[in-house]
């Protein structure tokens, strides 16, 4: 029933002491009502029976989370990942199977649970922490740390209704993160607050990891699983589809998702004077279309163009950006010294990349045909293509590109080298 009362729940299974949480053949069904009898009249009229179908949100799921592990659970909407997290958090009760929690657990499914706008920040900290399962003494001990973490010292005695939404989230997160659990369940709330606060949160997570705390993270964001977790589980239609190293699981997941979506032309926006235009963009890996793009791939970006008249010295350019983020590069055929005197009719432009330096993540490609001065725009195709880079020939994950670095550690006291882990 309680969050913290579970610490000694099971010490029967000897040898499982490094298992923080065990999910044992868990199934969870929800009733899909045809005619929902949630009034007495309907209930009585149907003779005390509700007509419903059982919908399996989870079907016979088993897994073990080991102490010190950071597990990321991914999956599309309706895959059952949130249901699994809620079962782990003891919010939902499984229909079959059992969940054994061996550690002091806290679940962050919502920030500021039970916050009351009329109460002061101080009162809300105490209330929220108590709801999350902390004892009064613990709250008193950590109160200063919580307030310091939130950075709201001046406002702590004002009613929460006077807070901005940013302040509200900061206070809520400060409480949540200071519950100090051995096992922390998180439901995609990592991306809160401003950049400095996010930085603080990430530091806190890293600190928790260093302290050998166990983390379970449910999210859409494959990026944070890649960066943050050392194991990933892909949940699909209530069953575990893949379980293993984040890079492998996410690649498999992304490939399937891409296959499901086809190559969508939707979202492309075109402008320009139109004497020459890019019909479509093809991405070829080792000369093969629609193959997965990986770091280190031999990639060809092929632009298919068509013209309505003779166009003098046209310049082709592409721009590659992180989806919804920074531009990575914008090479043009002028920089590449490949501008023809004139073009008419149809043709293709190949941009060859021998060893793709992009790191795993979603990217988007825009392309453009301009005059030699780059001022006149014949054609601009925004979002001409989007693609996911999967992990390839480097272990780097943070950032957008790899510099292909080589490392040397020198010094009089430097001895030997350990094997890669």
């Amino acid at each position: 029933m309680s969050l913290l009362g579970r610490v000694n729940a099971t010490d029967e299974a000897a040898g499982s002491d490094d298992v923080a949480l065990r999910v044992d053949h868990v199934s969870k069904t929800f009733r899909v009502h045809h005619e929902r009898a949630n009034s007495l009249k309907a209930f009585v009229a149907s003779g005390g029976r509700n007509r419903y179908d059982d919908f399996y949100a989870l079907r016979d799921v088993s897994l073990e989370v080991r102490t010190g592990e950071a597990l990321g659970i991914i999956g599309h909407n309706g895959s059952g990942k949130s249901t699994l997290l809620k079962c782990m958090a003891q919010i939902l009760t499984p229909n079959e199977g059992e969940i054994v929690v061996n550690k002091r657990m806290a679940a962050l499914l919502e920030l500021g649970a039970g916050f009351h706008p009329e109460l002061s920040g101080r009162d809300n900290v105490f209330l929220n922490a108590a709801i999350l399962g902390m004892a009064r003494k613990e709250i008193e001990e950590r109160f200063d740390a919580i307030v310091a973490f939130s950075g709201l010292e001046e406002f702590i005695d004002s009613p929460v209704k006077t807070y901005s939404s940013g302040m509200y989230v900061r206070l809520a997160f400060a409480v949540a993160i200071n519950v100090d659990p051995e096992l922390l369940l998180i439901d995609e709330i990592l991306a809160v607050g401003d950049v400095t606060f996010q930085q603080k949160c990430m530091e806190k997570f890293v600190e928790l990891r260093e302290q050998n705390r166990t983390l379970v993270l449910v999210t859409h964001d494959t990026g944070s699983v890649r960066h943050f977790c050392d194991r990933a589980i892909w949940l699909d239609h209530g069953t575990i589809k893949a379980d293993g190293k984040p890079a492998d699981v996410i690649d498999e997941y992304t490939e399937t998702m891409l296959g499901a979506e086809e190559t969508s032309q939707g979202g492309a926006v075109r402008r320009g004077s139109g004497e020459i235009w890019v019909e479509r963009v093809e991405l070829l890996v080792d000369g093969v279309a629609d193959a997965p793009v990986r770091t280190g791939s031999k990639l060809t970006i092929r632009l298919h163009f068509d013209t309505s008249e003779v166009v003098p010295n046209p310049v082709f350019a592409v721009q590659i950006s992180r989806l919804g983020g920074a531009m990575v590069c914008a090479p043009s055929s002028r920089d590449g010294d490949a501008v023809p005197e004139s073009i008419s009719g149809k043709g293709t432009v190949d941009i060859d990349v021998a060893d793709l330096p992009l790191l795993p993540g979603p990217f988007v490609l825009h392309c453009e045909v301009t005059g030699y001065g780059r001022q006149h725009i014949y054609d601009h195709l925004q979002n001409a293509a989007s693609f996911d880079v999967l992990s390839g020939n480097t272990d780097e994950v943070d950032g957008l590109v790899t510099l292909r670095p080589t490392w040397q550690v020198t010094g009089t006291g430097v001895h030997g080298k350990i094997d890669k882990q």
Partner: protein
Amino acid sequence: MSLRTAVAHRNLLYLLSLKELRTRYRKSVLGWAWSLLNPISQMIIFTIIFRYVFQRPDPVGDPSGLETFPLYFLAGLLPFQFFSISVTAAIASVEGGASLIKKVAFPHEHLVLSIIVAQFVTLLIELAVLSVAFLLFGHMVLPWLAPMLLLMCLVAMFTIGVALMLSAANVFFHDINYLWGIVAQLLFYSSPIIFVAEEIQIAWLRAITNYGPTGSFVRAAQEIMYDGQMPSLARWAQVAFYSIVMFALGSWTFNRLSPRFAEEL
């Protein structure tokens, strides 16, 4: 079960009750005065009806010798109102706690218990004010406050039982909310608050008012506070019986249903 988790999480219960008390009347000008104004206004209305519309003589307290309908009325009304308001608020608190129940694992009964703790504090304040009124009318009520407190604890137990049962049932059948409005009225008029049970001529009607679940504790409260006499052992047994049965029934129902709250709300 209910009681054990309540003790284990008494800090949460304490803070939720405190929140309940602090946020009540927050945006009103008169604030806490409302908790007294409500029974006083009812007292005025029913006194006018009793004395001038129906022209009944004020009940005589035996052996206190009091002959003041307003005091008789309040001695019965305050415990009853504690009961009825608590149940109404408890039903709303579980329904209103949906977002919390769906997102956090915590003992759900604390939503209900915190309401009743807060209402009990209000009741004690109201009874203190009523005691002053009794003293002003020359009735030495102070020695009677100890048995009254014991009685109120039994009433609280009864209230917890009913509140747990109905608030849990309401998650599955929202009609409970509306049905309770009618039942509360029925209980109010079937308890001897605005009339005197002994004056009822029809035997079975008199029995209902005297021995019904709310009538029992209303009578006991009137005997203690207004009449100034110890209720009979039979009366105590009656009140305790209703309290224990409802408490057990309510806890059992709530514990059975609460694991499914998160998916039903």
